């Protein structure tokens, strides 16, 4: 067999590609992250806020961008396209075409002077055409890599940028180059393309200036967008009063060639409506929709809040067209609501456009030799939802089906696990680890070196940098100061190291830009010079000085001096900090032996680590045991049997049946758990925990359930149908039983598809059968829409009901269902043989006990609550504990598998490392001062504080391995017993004093 290669190529640098790259690079593989645009980040960089938490998209994405950009094992290959792929699983040879940027990435510092001077303008794609940019540009201000690119189509070749670039980074003679890479696995994450609504002339997009797409509206909402976050009409710059959102533009539409549902538009429209109202108080948003598909975790809650708190109006209808009053550019939306044609005036119309496959999907499929499905997305199947049709090539994100950010992130981790599994034998073979010289002990005199940056003309054009240097030289403890054109450039790093040696410096201060992007770089330089990385302090004299005081150079220079003085005052007191190291027990504990738990256990075991799989029942299988057939026709029984056989045949997996977790102690890398079964008690040691405890079907109390035997749940119907015990002639299905109600406000995600599945099955068993589905919104999202359409075509009748007109089920000598039909506006009466209730998915009853045991939180609904709903869907805030499947929230088979593989990948980022190095900025307790009040213990989000008995008193103790250095405990402690390393009271007070002192000027 040919030797495999321990590297992976990820195609597409959006959030999915970034997550897959980070997981792989953190578990011992070299990653090439390929992006055709000049910078990574994808569509998420263009979004204003994200649902359902309303987090700023850029703020939560930026740390991942920086993480990917700085990771020693991730090579960003930007502005590059795929040309050829040869080879096979485990060993691919890839040829790429790297387009000429005409800017040397090693020299460019991203200062932006070139763009200020460039006379050639182009449309700004980042702002979707709503503003302009220069021919030399970065896509967005926080771009990674922060390297400018010349747009050759717009560049006049005037040579100005070459003349003004002080870093001498412009390369007019650069040409496209061919690159060759060898990789073991390939992950596809090319994302999606927004649908262009010009083709649908009835909406007037392109003709009427105030008709915009949802992506354009994101930019309009964004503080970094063309209108700085105030919603304005493109036609006249006035603030709109009434904004209409039209759903399903290019989705669920055969004419547009996209019969599928785009899954995300309902939620982003609600979010845009809510945010628009927040940005322009008093704005009146209206959403025109067919089915409101708020099916994700806590989405229904968000939908309800939009209605109740933000006054968003929802109209269930079909929109026929939009027309414009030419004089005012006001718009009229004509729609049909309950068979009545209505017309209403709006200031702006937002089209919620579909997600289409990326434009180069066909080319990718040809080059890589995998298949696309009938819609042009990547073909996958229910049980292999992250594999393409070609072995060794995996897929994640919107390219496998339209999906939102958390589902993309979870699937990306899943793809990382699959990609790693195929080349697990080569883990660690290609990665580089950085070796630093031994740290010099620091003692005696404090010797500070100050390096002040011109940042091209960014700082130097306003602040008189040489004056600040002279000033710094006179400050206490400063033995050396100099200025640099760019302190961050590679040659300056060498210079800093030389100066440390030459002048015996033991503290370094850099006055330049922001620590957000540059602190890690300077800390690494200190380490290379043999200094502890925490002997470093930064003053931000760009963002907080020269940029904001552009017009007051003298005052700006004085403020720069103030900032440097403050940094020096703090630097005089800083001490080296140690990064705690933890040894890792390379064993996983997976709690729950259903589909998700088994999948996660197998993923981890097949990557070479031991697993304890704990199941409370006497057999493996969980809820999958009750599922008898699936929408796509695959056989769940056979799949389950295969999976159990693999688990039982894997010597790395130890299955504990009829067992529950009794107690867990320890922290990431070193847990100790007591497992209890009838027979015995066993203690296992492990490094990570995966929670896959599943969910339970709601036991209805309504609609005569439990009273009449012919009223049953979908699962019960499924069993009877599969066993041939039933052949009904007339069936009524009622949706949202135990979901979307007061007691259980959220949607159970799977019931609409399950109802369609069982309705089609009834038609298969008995083509003459009449089936009625009584629903609130049909939520057959994504490609499942095709089964809904098929059901309607097969004569299954769908009747919509509202909460105030719920169906009535009675039995007086025969089952009778009464329901109000909004189309004919009359009550109708059905006399079915059976009534089937789509009972919701509830959290597992044991969740509260387990959550208490592991000190992890539950959501309001009782499902486990992840660290971050958007970007950390499979993690907990506590390191080393992960979740997947129904434990996280209701979801179908394919999504459980994606999440389970994803949780495995997240776990392997810990298991694959012999030791974990934690941050040095952590809290310390002075035991003599601690009164044992326990306030810190309660407030710590990471479970990093425990109370330990000493001298007969319980005192606070920091578990260093878990501390994130957030500082909350320190500011809470009433006795002043807790200090945060690097931010001690003494250091901060001295910095503040220096800031406030009188300076003789």
């Amino acid at each position, binding site marked *: 067999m040919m030797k495999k290669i321990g590297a992976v190529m990820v195609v597409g640098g959006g959030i999915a590609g970034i997550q897959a790259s980070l997981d792989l690079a953190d578990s011992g593989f070299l990653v090439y992250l390929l992006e055709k645009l000049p910078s990574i980040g994808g569509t998420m960089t263009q979004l204003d806020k994200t649902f359902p938490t309303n987090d700023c998209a850029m703020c939560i994405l930026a740390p991942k961008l920086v993480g990917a950009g700085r990771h020693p094992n991730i090579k960003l290959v930007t502005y590059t396209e795929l040309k050829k792929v040869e080879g096979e699983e485990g060993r691919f040879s890839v040829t790429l075409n790297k387009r000429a940027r005409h800017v040397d990435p090693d020299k460019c510092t991203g200062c932006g002077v070139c763009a200020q*001077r460039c*006379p*050639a*303008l182009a449309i700004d794609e980042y702002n979707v055409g*709503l*503003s*302009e940019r220069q021919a030399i540009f970065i896509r967005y201000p926080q771009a990674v890599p922060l390297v400018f690119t010349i747009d*050759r189509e717009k560049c*006049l*070749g*005037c*040579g*100005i940028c*070459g003349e003004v670039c002080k870093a001498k980074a412009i390369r*007019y003679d650069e040409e496209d180059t061919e690159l060759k890479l060898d990789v073991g696995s390939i992950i596809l994450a090319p994302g999606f393309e927004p649908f262009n609504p010009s083709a649908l002339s009835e909406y007037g997009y392109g003709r009427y*200036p105030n008709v915009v797409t949802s992506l354009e509206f994101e930019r309009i909402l964004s503080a970094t967008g*063309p*209108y*700085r976050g*105030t919603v*304005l009409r*493109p*036609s*006249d*710059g*006035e*603030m*709109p*009063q009434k904004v209409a959102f039209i759903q399903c533009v290019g989705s669920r539409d055969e004419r547009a060639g996209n019969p599928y549902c785009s899954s995300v538009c309902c939620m982003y429209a609600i979010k845009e409506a809510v945010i628009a109202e927040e940005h322009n108080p008093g704005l009146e948003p209206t959403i025109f929709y067919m089915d409101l598909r708020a099916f994700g975790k806590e989405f229904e809650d968000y939908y309800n809040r939009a209605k109740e708190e933000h006054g968003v109006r929802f109209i269930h209808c079909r929109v026929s067209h939009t027309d414009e009053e030419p004089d005012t550019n006001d718009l009229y939306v004509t729609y049909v609501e309950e068979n009545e044609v209505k017309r209403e005036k709006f200031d702006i119309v937002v089209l919620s456009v579909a997600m289409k496959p990326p434009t180069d999907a066909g080319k990718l499929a040809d080059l890589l030799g995998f298949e696309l499905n009938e819609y042009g997305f990547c073909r996958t199947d229910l049980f292999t939802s992250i594999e393409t049709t070609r072995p060794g090539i995996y897929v994640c994100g919107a390219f496998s089906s339209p999906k939102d950010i958390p589902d993309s992130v979870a699937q990306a981790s899943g793809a990382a696990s699959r990609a790693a599994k195929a080349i697990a034998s080569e883990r660690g073979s290609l990665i580089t680890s950085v070796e630093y010289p031994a740290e010099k002990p620091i003692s005696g005199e404090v010797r500070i070196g100050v390096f002040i940056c011109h940042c091209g003309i960014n700082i130097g054009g306003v602040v008189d940098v040489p004056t600040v240097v002279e000033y710094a030289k006179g400050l206490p403890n400063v033995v050396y100061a100099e200025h640099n054109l760019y302190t961050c450039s590679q040659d300056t790093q060498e210079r800093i190291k030389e100066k440390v040696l030459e002048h015996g410096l033991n503290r370094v201060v850099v006055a330049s830009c922001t620590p957000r992007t540059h602190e890690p770089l300077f800390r690494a330089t200190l380490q290379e010079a043999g200094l502890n990385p925490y002997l470093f302090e930064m003053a931000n004299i760009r963002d907080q000085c020269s940029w904001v005081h*552009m*017009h007051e150079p003298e005052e700006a220079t004085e403020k720069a001096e103030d900032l440097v003085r403050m940094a020096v005052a703090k630097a005089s007191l800083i001490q080296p900090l140690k990064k705690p190291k933890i040894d890792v027990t390379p064993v996983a504990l997976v709690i729950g032996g259903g589909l998700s738990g088994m999948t996660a256990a197998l993923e981890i075991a097949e990557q070479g680590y031991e697993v304890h799989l704990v199941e409370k029942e006497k057999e493996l299988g969980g809820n999958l045991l009750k599922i008898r057939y699936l929408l796509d026709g695959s056989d769940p029984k056979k799949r389950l049997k295969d999976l159990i056989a693999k688990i039982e045949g894997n010597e790395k997996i130890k299955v504990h049946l009829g067992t529950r977790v009794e107690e867990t102690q320890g922290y990431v890398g070193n847990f100790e758990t007591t497992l209890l079964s009838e027979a015995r008690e066993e203690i296992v040691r492990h490094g990570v925990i995966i929670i896959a405890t599943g969910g339970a079907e709601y036991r209805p109390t309504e609609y005569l359930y439990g009273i009449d035997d012919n009223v049953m749940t979908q699962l019960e119907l499924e069993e009877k149908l599969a066993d041939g015990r039933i052949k009904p002639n007339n069936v009524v299905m009622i949706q949202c039983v135990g979901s979307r109600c007061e007691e259980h406000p959220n949607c159970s995600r799977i019931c609409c598809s399950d109802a369609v599945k069982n309705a089609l099955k009834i038609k298969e068993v008995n083509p003459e059968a009449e089936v009625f589905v009584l629903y609130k919104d049909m939520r057959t999202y994504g490609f499942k829409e095709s089964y809904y359409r098929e059901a309607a075509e097969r004569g299954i009748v769908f009747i919509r009901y509202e909460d105030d007109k719920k169906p009535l089920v009675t039995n007086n000598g025969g089952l009778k269902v009464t329901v109000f039909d909004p189309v004919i506006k009359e009550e109708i009466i059905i006399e079915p043989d059976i009534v089937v209730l789509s009972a919701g998915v509830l959290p597992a009853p044991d969740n509260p006990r387990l959550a208490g045991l592991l000190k992890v939180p539950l959501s309001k609904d009782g499902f486990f609550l992840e660290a971050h709903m958007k970007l950390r869907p499979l993690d907990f805030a506590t390191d080393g504990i992960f979740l997947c499947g129904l434990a996280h929230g209701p979801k179908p088979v394919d999504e459980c598998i994606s999440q389970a593989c994803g949780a495995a990948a997240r776990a392997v980022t810990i298991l694959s490392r012999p030791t974990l190095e934690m941050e040095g900025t952590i809290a310390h307790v002075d035991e003599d001062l601690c009164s044992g009040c326990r306030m810190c213990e309660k407030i710590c989000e990471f479970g990093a504080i425990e109370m330990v008995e000493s001298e007969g008193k319980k005192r606070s103790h920091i578990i260093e391995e878990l501390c994130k250095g957030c500082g909350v405990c320190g500011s809470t402690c009433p006795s002043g017993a807790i200090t945060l390393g690097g931010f001690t009271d003494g250091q901060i007070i001295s910095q503040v004093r220096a800031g406030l002192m009188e300076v003789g000027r």
Partner: protein
Amino acid sequence: LRDLAKKAEFDLRRMRFDYVSASNVQRFDKIVIEFIDQVKALGPSPLSGNKPEPNLLLNLRAAKAAAEGFRLRVLAGKEEQLVSKGNVYGERSTLEKFDEVMAEAVDSEYARHRIRLALLEKSMSVLELSEKLDMEPRRILEHLVAMRLLGWVDTQEIRGRSPIYRALEVP
């Protein structure tokens, strides 16, 4: 310059460009006399006296500012190089293509300076600017978006449903 003056609706008969060699006194003499006669025949300038025509004055000042601006000076200065010698990539631009780029630049620079000068007189909304400058409101908003990025303008307040823009000192 003629392009800009024409845009400013300045009577082109009041303007003359010519080339005269330093030694050719007669020709210089002739041109100046001719031009003086021509201007006299046109009567008093709308800009003369105590009350110069305010719109024309604003237009001319905008034209002057645009002509002095960095972008147009750079483009004009690079014309020779781009058209006859070839650009930094060794490509030669045709005169038509260059003129097209130049015309676009002249258009937008002139429009932006008009907006700026109008805002220096008085802070205004997009619709007010549109009326004063007789420009489509949509274009004005596009220019304001670009001008705000350059630090030329800012929003001062919101009046009713209209953001009011003000001009800033340009560094």
